[in-house]
């Protein structure tokens, strides 16, 4: 895959790993909020929040990637993405920066124990390797 300098990404992390989403998919980034839990849903769907009058579901990236859950901290953020017709919040440990990649490689089968299907590619930036999320897969995962 060719480097696409003009495309900007928002880089964020869970544990020690860095991930990114294309900036135009991102609606906004908000601080942790009170989440209303919903019974009988997939375990990684944590519930819903009130985003200025709109009910937005939130999912935990930790839970989706089967990384042990941790208590939310001051740096915990909800990355609200707008994808297809849905607005969904993704809980991450921290949001680092807006970045561009000098090079993007196709993803390997597994990325640090996580299925490669979740990624569009692996981006190379100043801070190291960043997994670029494939929202289709992250949001529609069964």
């Amino acid at each position, binding site marked *: 895959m060719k480097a696409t300098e003009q495309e900007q990404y928002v880089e964020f992390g869970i544990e020690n790993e860095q991930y990114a989403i294309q900036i135009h998919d991102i609606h906004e980034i908000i601080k942790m909020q*009170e989440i*209303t*839990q*919903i*019974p*009988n*849903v997939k375990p990684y*769907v944590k*519930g*819903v*929040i*009130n985003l200025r*009058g709109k*009910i*937005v*579901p939130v999912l935990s990236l930790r839970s989706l990637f089967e990384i042990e859950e941790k208590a939310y901290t001051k740096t915990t953020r909800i990355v609200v993405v707008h994808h297809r*017709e*849905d*607005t*969904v919040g993704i809980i991450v440990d921290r949001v680092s920066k807006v970045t561009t990649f000098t090079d993007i490689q196709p993803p390997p089968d597994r990325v640090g124990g996580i299925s490669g299907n979740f990624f569009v590619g692996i981006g190379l930036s100043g801070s190291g390797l960043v997994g670029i999320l494939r929202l289709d897969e992250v*949001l529609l995962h069964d």
Partner: protein
Amino acid sequence: MSFDYREVFIEELEEQLQLMDDEIMKLEQSDSEEVVQSLFRAAHTLKGSSAAMGFEEMKQLTHRMEQLLDQVRSRQRPVTAQLIDLLFLALDNLKLLKEDILRNDPSSTDISLCIEKLQTFAENSEVSRPTAASASDPGESGIAKLRLTMSDRLKVQQIQERGQHVFWVRVSIASDCLIKGARAYVIHSKMLEWGEVLLASPDLENLDESNEFSEITLLYGGTQSSEELSVLVSGLTDVESVNVEPIHPEETTLSQQPPAASEKSAGEEVQQTAKIKSQTIRVSVERLDHLMNLVGELVIDQTRIHQVERTQRRRVSDESVNELGHISDHLSRIIGDLQESVMKARMLPIEQLFNRFPRMIRDLSRDLGKEIDLVIEGQDTELDRTLIEEIADPLIHLIRNAIDHGIEGPDKRADAGKNRTGTLVIRAAHEDNQVVIYVQDDGAGIDPEKIKASAIKKGLVTPEEAEQFSEREAIELIFRPGFSTAAVVSDVSGRGVGMDIVRSNIEKLNGMIDIETKLGEGTCFKIKLPLTLAIIAGLQVKLQKQTLIIPMSNIAEIVRVTSGEIEIVRGQSVILLRNRVIPVVDIHDQFKADRTQQSRIPLVIVGSAEKRLALVVDELIGNQEIVIKSLGSYIGKVEGIAGATILGDGSVALILEISALFNRISGK
């Protein structure tokens, strides 16, 4: 073809079809000129608009109807049972055509048979044709006269009192004229320059291309003599011949004309409805929905402002807080009014739905050989448009059942000492912010023993289970899937799906259904529905920390019991409430909430359709109007959750789906 036009056309079509339905029924009851006139107008309107939209078959069919009705209108044809049946047949075919149009699948319905029938009927008993419709008949002497309405007569008299003359003028237009319509129009407007034109046939304002004519007949009033007028008109382009005849005094007499009097009132009515119509506009439901959503947002924000005001008041007390209080109060009043108005805009009288029933019941009772008096009450009760659509099927099922299974045949009724004619009452009313619809018959009632026997035979319950059923429980078996009481399955009802569908549809609408029945005296179904689906009254309850909302329409009552009053029967906790065993459901586990120890446990008795259960909660907060929001397509449908709402403090509360709780019990 523009999509907008299509929608407008379909709306008009539906209106006119409903009108025809009503009017044909009326015509069957009494042969009134007014009714024939209105039917004729409906057929004519549809002919015009279907031609304009290019629906050829519909045009042909309405044309035939129009023709037939014209014969009735001009008293050449009596109103017979055969005629009524034929009109109904044509109407049914029109409805089929409408369905085709809705499906965008024109031509799947074959109407040729119907058209043929109409045609043969129209031609067979044809009498002489002296009216405007036959004005084009060559060789006919004199001028075909149009009927004069009361107001026309008055005008004629006025003109004559001024010393002017009134003539019937028949103008033949040259056969090689290509645009006869336009020509006729020109002639008409020329004559308007010379004097007054009281009547014209064909109606020049509603001319469409399908109208074939070579002559126009006009009633003209002016200063000219008949010779002068003749010369004037012949001088116009494309006029082949002119025939001028003075109006006969008999045609203008004001008294001794009973049919004319009724025609006058019909004319007035038309004017009135026209006036009313001009004061309404059509708005798409989508726009109203959007408006409703916006109001919903306002309602939420208002509760938040109110909350802020209260917390501020606790902290500081100065002018500005008081001011905020006033503004907030005023705002909530206005928002309340706004919400009500928007809700009202979405409401339609249930008449829309009830109107369909007389015809349906007429056909059904005829097919089944029963005599039925239909009483419809409260048809002006208003409810949300979507609800009207959703409740249609369940109601139709109930009515069919009442006629098929409920009301007995005339002989059987006579044997039982009842009136040979059965009575079916369909009634709607508002009761404490809900709509209640009753379907009541004075038929045989439901026999719990028969129901049990039938359920056992069908393997729905075991004889041992049936033994334990109370009368009420036995009767409620009719709501089980796969149940049907008719010994012979008729095509009217008794497909064994009816009552099951009735129940699930009502549950979907957050409604309840109750049956009251007395053997030999009749059955009454009572359906309770919320007024609207978008904003509901809900009871806020707490399960530990989580706030949940139970739709008010589902709540039968609230009780507090001690833990000792909850018994366990066959592994299911139940309470005994006024001799009715009600299962107790605890959803703490589902919501990952710990149980609180209380001496008196609040139980919310909820109902879905005819069933009841008691829901254990930790705390009752109070009721509030809430705006239902969906959880969105990402989460999709969650078992047990009807949606969510945003509370005054900005947090999200889930709305319980009561019918799912019942599934939990039956699933056990």
